[in-house]
């Protein structure tokens, strides 16, 4: 654009310069033609003067010849032409007078000449007026003739001088002019070349600009194509509404969205509104008024009915712009959001279903926690009553049966408790609080102190930093894992549990590499218990999966709860082990720096 503006300026300058040069050229040429015509006038002038002088001289000769004839013959036949000659001489003198007006020197010369001519004529006239007797006096006549002869020579000399002078003047003028005229072709030629160069520069510039424009046009064409594609992919269309004459310009894809063939509708607003769902029409009209007045009107959703009577959901945004000539236009984009709206409905329905399911689940939780526990509790309490009150009246077998019922009831209680614990470990409890993990571990050890004391377990705990966690879930996590470590101990070996802390980066541990987080707290809990086969490492977190069913009591829920808790914290839990050596649980909880 900038380049273009510069070019425009350049062209203007070249054009102005060209115009100026041509004007100069015109003036210059005019001046030279003027000069040429001056030269021609000068030549004519000189020629006229020369001619006039020659003519006058000839008349002087004629007059003298006639005068002689008359003197000799005394016949008036000669007298008459002599008079005519005199008149002509005067006429020529007058002409010369006029012609030499512009030249002072020549004028003076002419004055002397005409004095001489007049004195010659007066000599001649003298002799004419002489009578016969006088003519007989040879001295007088001779004098007159000698004088006239003398004057005649003088006249001839003067005339020749004047002609020479005139020629000199002409020569000077001509040489002056020819000097100027010699330069003329060179100047004209060079100016012409300059003009040509300017024209060529302008041409080059224009060609360059045209190429530039062509390139821009090609790019625009590409953009137009890609924006058309974008419209098709993005399910949207653009439109321009000329408010003043109420006409629309729609992009091709807009017609497709409307479900009609391109260029099938292009009437005013009312025709367009007739396609809009009748419940949305009034609101859309109000929105259009908003578009006309507000600088940043909000989006609006409305529905249209296409020719096949399908309802489509549209979203529109438009803004008022004013063209250079003051025309008001609204430029807008309309997107077909039918699919989104339908998806939203589906998602809403699913959410409602999920909410319903969740409600059912929590009802079930309550039933499990209260209604199932109550009869079980009573069974257990009655059993304890029976055991104490009627111990002596029961047979050995009866006591054994009671023992079996008690253990079954205890197992059922454990299952119910663990299941409840599992179902309560919900993400909805996710309130991450800055928590001192050391306190949590102390609480857990306090809670587990009976089994720690009874087994003599040694538990080493690192110093832990604060973590952003849900405290009671972390509590449960430590309870379950430390409990397991003590529970699955080797016979006759003091259980040892090491709880250590490390800070790791996600790229150093393979399973963490897919995580979005970069830093993790790594809590490792290692024991020296019975361990497990590495091949089962993944299975142990599956609900109800139990590796040591035969010898140990358990529900197969504890580690599933652990997994769920760690998942809730966006973390990872990994198990590794070796039979008869021990097990290791690595917990990774992400945190932000």
């Amino acid at each position, binding site marked *: 654009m900038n380049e273009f503006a510069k070019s425009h300026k350049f062209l203007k300058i070249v054009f102005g310069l060209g115009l100026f040069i041509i004007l100069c050229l015109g003036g210059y040429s005019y001046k030279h033609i003027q000069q040429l015509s001056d030269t021609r006038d000068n030549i004519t002038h000189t020629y006229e003067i020369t001619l006039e002088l020659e003519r006058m001289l000839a008349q002087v000769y004629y007059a003298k010849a006639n005068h002689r004839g008359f003197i000799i013959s005394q016949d008036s036949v000669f007298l008459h032409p002599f008079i005519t000659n005199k008149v002509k001489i005067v006429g020529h003198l007058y002409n010369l007078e006029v012609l030499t007006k512009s030249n002072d020197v020549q004028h003076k010369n002419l004055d002397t000449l005409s004095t001489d001519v007049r004195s010659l004529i007066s000599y001649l006239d003298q002799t004419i007026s002489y009578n016969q007797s006088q003519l007989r006096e040879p001295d007088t006549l001779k004098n007159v003739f000698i004088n006239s002869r003398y004057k005649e020579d003088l006249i001839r000399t003067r005339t020749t001088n004047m002609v020479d002078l005139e020629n000199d003047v002409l020569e000077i003028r001509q040489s002056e002019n020819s000097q100027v005229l010699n330069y003329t072709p060179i100047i004209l030629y060079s100016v012409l070349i300059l003009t040509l160069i300017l024209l060529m520069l302008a041409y080059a510039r224009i060609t360059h600009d045209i190429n530039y424009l062509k390139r821009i046009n090609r790019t625009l064409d590409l953009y137009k194509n890609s924006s058309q594609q974008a419209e098709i992919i993005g399910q949207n269309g653009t439109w321009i509404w000329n408010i003043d004459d109420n006409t629309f310009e729609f992009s091709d894809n807009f017609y497709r969205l409307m479900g009609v063939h391109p260029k099938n509708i292009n009437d005013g607003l009312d025709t367009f509104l007739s396609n809009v769902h009748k419940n949305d029409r009034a609101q859309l009209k109000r929105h259009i008024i908003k578009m006309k007045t507000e600088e940043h009107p909000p989006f609006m959703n409305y529905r249209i009915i296409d020719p096949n009577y399908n309802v489509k959901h549209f979203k529109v945004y438009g803004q008022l712009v004013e063209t250079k000539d003051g025309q008001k236009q609204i430029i807008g984009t309309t997107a077909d959001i039918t699919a989104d709206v339908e998806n939203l409905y589906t998602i809403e329905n699913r959410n409602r279903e999920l909410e319903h399911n969740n409600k059912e689940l929590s009802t079930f939780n*309550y039933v499990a926690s*209260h209604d199932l526990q*109550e009869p079980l*509790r009573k069974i*257990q*309490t009655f059993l*304890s*009553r029976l055991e*104490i009150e009627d111990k002596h009246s029961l047979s050995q077998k009866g006591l054994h049966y009671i023992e079996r019922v008690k253990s079954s009831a205890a197992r059922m*209680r454990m299952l119910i408790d663990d299941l409840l614990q599992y179902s309560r470990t919900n993400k909805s409890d996710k309130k991450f609080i800055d928590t001192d993990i050391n306190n949590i571990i102390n609480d857990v050890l306090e809670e587990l102190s009976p089994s720690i004391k009874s087994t003599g377990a040694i538990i080493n705990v690192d110093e832990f930093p604060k973590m952003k966690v849900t405290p009671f879930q972390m509590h449960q996590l430590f309870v379950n894992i430390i409990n397991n470590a003590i529970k699955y101990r080797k016979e006759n070996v003091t259980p040892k549990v090491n709880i250590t802390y490390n800070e790791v980066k996600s790229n150093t541990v393979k399973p963490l590499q897919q995580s979005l987080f970069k830093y993790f707290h790594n809590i490792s809990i290692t024991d020296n218990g019975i361990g497990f086969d590495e091949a089962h490492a993944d299975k142990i977190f599956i609900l109800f999966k139990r590796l040591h069913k035969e010898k140990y009591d358990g529900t197969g829920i504890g580690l599933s709860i652990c997994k769920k808790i760690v998942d809730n914290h966006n973390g990872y839990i990994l198990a590794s082990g070796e039979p008869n050596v021990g097990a290791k649980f690595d917990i990774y909880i992400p945190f932000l720096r």
Partner: protein
Amino acid sequence: MAENYVKIALADDDPDDRLFFKEAFEELKIKSKVSTFNDGDTLMSYLNNENNEIPDLLFLDLNMPRKSGLECLVEIKSNDRFNDLAIAIYSTSATEEDIEYTFVKGANIYIKKPNDFNILKKTLSQVVTTNWQFANNGLNRDNFLLRL
């Protein structure tokens, strides 16, 4: 004579629980007078009758028909007549919400019904022998749920 007896009341809709409760006190060597109510309604109409004696200690089941234990708790705590009445929640379940709510509403202790008669006896004896007038001074959320 009346001073030697601890007056204890229980509101519980479950006949078995009422039975265990009574039997436990019979076996405990505590001088006590136990009265039981089948639901919240009968409990409240007894308490609201000014001719009746106010018990020293009330055990409240939460889940009862007609009037729940929570409703009774709120009603009792809003009446100055029962300022000296200590209230123990006595329920099958011990959900966080229930514990939190009853603590906020002013119950003195939360007991989860044990599933062993001997533990029941131990629990009840501990609750009854606690002097609630003094114990309340150190009342806090952590020891609200009774653990043995």
